[in-house]
């Protein structure tokens, strides 16, 4: 079915079905992605096994295929699986979203958690919770709407005969600060019970998420991720500048708007599920790029890196100060903050 791969300066060429399917594989990227996904998987299994009630790895595997005792089954599948799986899934969504916005802005600072889209999604979710007292789906919808509105606001304010990456980032940082202030204000004004649960969620946490949340987030991502991957090629072309992309047949503005909406939808899914988890979207695409040595940011390595990072961060959040459980956002902020400071200095020098 598949022809033998050939190595060259273009990487490995693979083709199948008499050339109807063909592509290039960069061995280094494949290796990096495999290792990262392996790390995410191992950490996931570890977190299924460990906790107040330790489960041997063998029983974990049995539980996953439905062969374990009912009590073990409940601990592993109902209590721990949603959290472990969501860490990987949401991490991948964050990485993907970061890759999209960093590519659109052609800047490593152009990440949804920095330029206000995550804060906007959180505002939307908060408004729904505080004002309407909505359930899971309405909160998710509110997050999406909030994210899209903040994106439209940032895009609109930064527009001057087209959008230039750095201006978008500066405007985005400003909008982000205002939205964060608005979010705090809403928490202060909210009823105590709502404020308490929202404040827990404020830092971004995977604590206490159940199978229903996993199913919902999984379903949404199942629609969003393939749509993103379909746009990976035009996204890469856009990095060369609008003119260069357009003369090669890319519908530049349409592609950018589609990517923007998908990227916001990704970040809104994460925010509606676990709150605003910072810095994974910022860090993952760049770390992945350095490891794969790819040109520009690439979607799949960024997603794999995001999955590994958030899994690792959540494992730390669960176990570093056990029995105290930290919100995972605290861990990502602590680690990502250092990177962010370094990046700001590096970017300031480059400008």
């Amino acid at each position, binding site marked *: 079915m598949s022809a033998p791969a050939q190595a060259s300066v*273009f990487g490995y060429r693979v083709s199948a079905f008499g050339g*109807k*399917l*063909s*592509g290039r594989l960069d061995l280094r990227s494949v290796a990096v992605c495999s290792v990262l996904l392996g790390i995410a998987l191992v950490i996931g299994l570890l977190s299924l096994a460990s906790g107040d009630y330790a489960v041997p790895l063998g029983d974990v595997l049995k539980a996953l295929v439905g062969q374990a005792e009912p009590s073990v089954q409940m601990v592993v599948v109902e209590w721990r699986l949603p959290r472990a799986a969501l860490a990987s899934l949401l991490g991948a969504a964050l990485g993907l979203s970061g890759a999209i916005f960093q590519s659109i802005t052609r800047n490593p600072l152009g990440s949804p958690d920095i330029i206000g889209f995550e804060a906007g999604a959180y505002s939307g979710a908060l408004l729904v919770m505080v004002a309407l007292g909505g359930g899971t789906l309405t909160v998710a919808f509110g997050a999406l709407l909030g994210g899209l509105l903040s994106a439209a606001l940032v895009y609109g304010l930064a527009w001057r005969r087209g959008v230039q990456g750095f201006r978008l980032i500066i405007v985005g940082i400003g909008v982000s600060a205002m939205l964060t202030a608005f979010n705090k204000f809403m928490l202060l004004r909210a009823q105590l019970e709502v404020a308490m649960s929202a404040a827990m969620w404020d830092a971004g946490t995977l604590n206490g998420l159940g199978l229903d949340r996993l199913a919902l987030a999984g379903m949404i991502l199942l629609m969003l991720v393939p749509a993103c991957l379909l746009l990976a090629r035009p996204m890469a072309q856009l990095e060369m500048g609008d*003119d260069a992309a357009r003369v090669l*047949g890319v519908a530049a503005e349409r592609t950018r708007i589609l990517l923007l909406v998908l990227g916001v939808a990704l970040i809104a899914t994460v925010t509606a599920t676990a709150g605003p988890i910072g810095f994974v979207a910022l860090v993952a695409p760049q770390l992945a790029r350095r490891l794969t040595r790819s040109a520009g940011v690439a979607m799949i390595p960024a997603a794999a890196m995001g999955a590994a990072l958030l899994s690792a961060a959540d494992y730390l959040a669960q176990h570093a100060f056990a029995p105290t459980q930290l919100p995972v956002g605290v861990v990502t902020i602590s680690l990502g903050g250092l990177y962010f400071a370094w990046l700001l200095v590096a970017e300031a020098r480059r400008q």
Partner: protein
Amino acid sequence: MMDDSVHKNRLYAEDVTIGYDRRVISTGLSVAIPDGAFTVIVGANACGKSTLLRALARLLKPSAGRVVLDGKTIADYPAREVARRLGLLPQSSIAPDGITVADLVARGRYPHQSFLQQWSDADESAVIEAMAATRITELSHRAVDELSGGQRQRVWIAMVLAQQTPILLLDEPTTYLDITHQIELMELLSALNRDGKTVTAVLHDLNQACRYGTHLIAMRDGAVIAEGAPRDIVTAELVEAVFGLSCVIIDDPIAHTPLVIPRGLPAMSITS
């Protein structure tokens, strides 16, 4: 307005009005790119030559009139179809961070690829050919950001060549190159033209335009004021009209094309 021979050409603009936002650059402009020629568009800064090129490449939509490619209004084609017939090297393009020469040239294959067919035999051979033609094969592993200006420009040209379009447009391709690399580039474009490509470039250097161009389009204030073979149209009067520069025209001792020697402007006083 246009005689019938114009309509035989694959690419022409018909009575177009073009500009940016509310600023109109050209009104009712009609101009054809002769098939098989090496056309050079010359004119003073801001005379609308790059704007015309952008309109011809469908980067700019005329507010009136139309650009015709192969007998059909260019706006009616799918974007990828245009990109298979016509390539353009824009004035400024950005090489993604850390991209290798081979990868950048390979991006020129985009209009020939699809989601399922991302890298065919034809893609690979087109890229290899394009790198050979621009003599960058040895650089193929290198990162584009490490190259010199001349090498980098050859890489961009290779990318447009990999696109394998019969028509090639270039917007000031020699800017930022030293004299040797400028000549090298012009010789390359000339060779591509002799191989059968229709080449059109916007250039600043009138003498290079005369030496290498087979067809000259001289523009001023958004209008074409003369066009034809350099030997037929380049006169002191034309240069005066296009650039406002007084000059003498002599015979280029090497290429025997018109050579423009400026007389200089009225003496300028620096002290007040």
